[in-house]
Each structure stands twice: as structure tokens, then as C-alpha cells.
């Protein structure tokens, strides 16, 4: 099997990798904000509950969580609740939303109270203060930790292989049956290019927000 055949196969796996990445990101980014508000809630039971939830999700290996989401409903009900791919998405979204929520919380709490007060005395509503004044300052402050987390997500997609989702590593492993090991190492190139693009993108956003200090 030649180089191009391998590349073509790996690309189809890479498509799955990208899909896991994109879906996780799109769903976990807003869900993280909801969890962040939960853990910052003045209603103590909600805040404690959220914090325990975040502790559990961050405290258990993601690989295990993927297996739990996929296999445990099977043990309980005799049939898996979700197809493999969606089990991966569910586990990833919950896991990453929890990590994001802590970054959001740190960012939101780092904005000084006086910014809120300045908005209040100008007669703005709470939501206007958050969306028009606080949010962009938060985004600027959390850009670096978020880029770290998002780059980690690119490589964590490889964990989908544990329940046999055909992402790029799984595709590469298939070649081992034909005596080819190099495709497995070749996958690194795909990850590197992906992360390279992301790095440039985050650099661009950081530059975009360079015009103010917060």
C-alpha cells in the first residue's frame, strides 16, 4: 500500500477527528458558561452541586468517562443508549465544559467590581453590563488558557479510539494488520498542522484584542 493510499485513509479518519473537535467545541463553549454561572451562583445548594459535579468530571480520566457513557447504559438496560460517535461527543462536551467553566469563572471573577458599578450608575441592566462591558474583557483575559485547553482537545480526540470510533489513530492502527507501522507515526503530521493553524488563529485573536488593556 502506497503513501497516497495511506494518506487518503488517514484523511477520512482525520475528518472524524475534526468533527469530534468541532462539535465538542461548539457545544462545550456555551455549556461551560452555564456551569460557570452555576458555580458562581449565590444560591448555595446550586453552587455546591455544580462544584461537586466539576470535581467529579475533572477528577476522572476522560478515557474512563468515554467508556462509562458508552458501556454503562448497556450494562443497565441491555442496550447502549448512544451510538459510539455520540457517546464520545457527550463525554467530551461534559468534560470540556467543566474545564472551560473554571477558566470562565476565573476570568469573570478577575474583572473588578468597579466595572460593574460604573455600569450600574449609568443605569445599565445586569445583562447589559455583562454582555456590553464585562464579556470582552473576560475574553481577552482567558484567551491564553483557553487556547491551551482547546489545543489539548485536538489531541484528546484520539481517546475516541477506545470505543472504536474511526478517528485518525484508529485508521492508522488498521494498517498494522498489513505490517505497516509508519502510518501510526505519520498521524503526528496531521495533528501538528491542525495545532499549527489553531496557534496562528489564537495569535490573530490576541492581536485583535491588543488595542485595549484590561
Amino acid at each position, binding site marked *: 500500500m502506497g503513501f497516497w493510499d495511506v494518506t487518503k485513509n488517514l484523511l477520512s479518519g482525520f475528518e472524524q477527528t475534526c468533527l469530534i473537535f468541532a462539535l465538542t467545541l461548539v457545544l462545550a463553549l456555551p455549556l461551560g458558561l452555564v456551569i460557570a454561572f452555576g458555580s458562581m451562583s449565590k444560591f448555595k445548594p446550586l453552587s455546591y452541586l455544580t462544584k461537586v459535579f466539576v470535581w467529579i468530571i475533572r477528577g476522572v480520566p476522560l478515557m474512563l468517562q468515554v467508556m462509562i457513557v458508552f458501556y454503562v447504559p448497556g450494562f443497565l438496560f441491555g442496550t447502549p443508549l448512544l451510538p459510539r460517535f455520540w457517546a464520545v461527543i457527550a463525554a467530551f462536551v461534559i468534560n470540556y465544559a467543566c474545564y472551560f467553566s473554571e477558566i470562565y469563572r476565573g476570568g469573570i471573577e478577575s474583572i473588578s467590581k468597579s466595572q460593574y*458599578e460604573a455600569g450600574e450608575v449609568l443605569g445599565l441592566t445586569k445583562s447589559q453590563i455583562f454582555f456590553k462591558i464585562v464579556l470582552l474583557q473576560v475574553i*481577552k483575559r482567558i484567551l491564553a488558557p483557553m487556547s491551551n485547553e482547546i489545543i489539548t482537545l485536538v489531541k484528546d480526540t484520539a481517546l475516541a479510539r477506545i470505543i472504536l470510533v474511526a478517528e485518525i489513530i484508529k485508521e492508522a492502527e488498521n494498517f498494522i494488520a498489513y505490517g505497516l507501522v509508519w502510518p501510526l507515526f505519520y498521524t503526528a503530521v496531521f495533528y501538528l498542522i491542525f495545532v499549527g493553524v489553531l496557534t496562528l488563529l489564537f495569535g490573530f485573536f490576541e492581536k485583535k484584542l491588543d488595542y485595549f488593556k484590561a
Partner: protein
Amino acid sequence: MALLEVFGITKSFGKTKVLKGINFSLEKGNVLSIIGSSGSGKTTLLRCLNFLETPDTGIICVDGEKIFDASTAKKLKESEIRQNRLRFGLVFQSFNLFPQYNVLDNLTLAPKLRINEKNLSPEEKKQELEHITQHALELLNRVGLSDKADFYPCQLSGGQQQRVAIARALALSPDILCFDEPTSALDPELTGEVLKVIKDLKSENTTMIVVTHEMDFARNVSDTIMFMADGVIEEMGTPEQIFDHPQSPKTHAFLNKSFENF
């Protein structure tokens, strides 16, 4: 009738009584300076007037209209509080400009958001928006910063930032403009430009309450001086009365200490 009347304001934080019954009134166009040592309750009083703190008891009236009554305060809706607080403007010690907006947008942000809440036809809305921008540019001219409209706060000196903050507070045309130690965060050479703006506002008959440590300024610009100590108004009167003939020993001691430092 006085523009502002304040009756029996008290405020505690936990067990600490910060305000122990504040009564005063302020005439339209007059300037009231509040002096006193740290912890005397000056800033808390100002924050109560601006609804950043809710007084435990007391009544606040502006223009004869009761805008706050502690006995009914819990029933107030957020929209009513927002409406009432616009009677007052507040300039903070630390400016608190919005860093991601340029100077002009800092001024127009709140007025423009208020336009959206009114039900206006697109034509009316466009006119209102133009009016807001026009008004903001005039205000910038008044604080001497016409040429800085598209600068960002981080590009300005502290004195310039505080002048923008004053213009921002004026953009909503409050009845009473409050200042919370407006020059305390500034380098000494920058306080002058801010104090000058406040003086100019006085000559335009702006009603103002200024919490300050600048004794000379308070003396020059104020119609009334309020000296606060331990949560009460220890003494109140014209600048001459307070600075030249203080009646209370506490006032005397405070003034002696303040002028010793120079």
C-alpha cells in the same frame, strides 16, 4: 425648595454602623463638599445616594419626588431603581472607564442602550442617536478633550481619564453629579486639570456633591462644607464657618491635622 433632601439615612455593614442618621438638603446649582477622615462614612453616603448601597433606613427626595424610602425599598423593581439612579451621576476615584471602548463610545454607550429600550420609529431612533453623539462631542469639548474622541482609555493620562469619566457621567444629564475623591488616584501634577473641570461645572450651575481630601479646593468651590465623623454630620456650614471658625473640637482637630501635612 431644595433639589435634594435626605432624611435619616442609616447604614450598617454587619455590626458596624457606618451611617448613623444623616439629614441634609442641597439647593439647585450648589456645591456640597464632604470632608472627614477615612472611615467616617463619606463614601458610603455617596454610594447610598447612587444606589450602590441600600440604606437601612431613611428617605431620599429629589425635586420634591421621593426616589427612595427604606420602608418600601424592597418592593422597588429593578427598572424603577435604574430610572431613579439616573437622577445622580457618579465619578469614581479610580475612573472606571470601559477599557474596550474609545472615549466617545464610553460616553455614548449608556445613552444609546437606553434608546433601544424606548419604542421609536427608525427615523426617530436615527435622530436620537445623532443627538447623543452630538451631545457627547460637546461634553468632550467642555472637559477639553475634543481631540481625544477616538483614543482608548489606556492611551490617556489619569487626569484625562478622569475628565472623560466626568463627561461620561454628564452624558446622562443627571440632576446631581457626585464625585468620590476624584483626584485621590492622580499624580499631584494632574489633579489641577480635574479640579478645573469641576470648577467650570460649578460656574455652569451644576449641582454637585464632592467627597474630597483637597481642602483648598473644597474651600474655593463649595457653597457648603459637610464635615463627617463616625457616621454622623459633625458640622455643616459655609466654607468660612467650617474652615475659619469650626465649632466642634473634632472639626478643629481634623482641620489642624489636614493642614499640618502641607
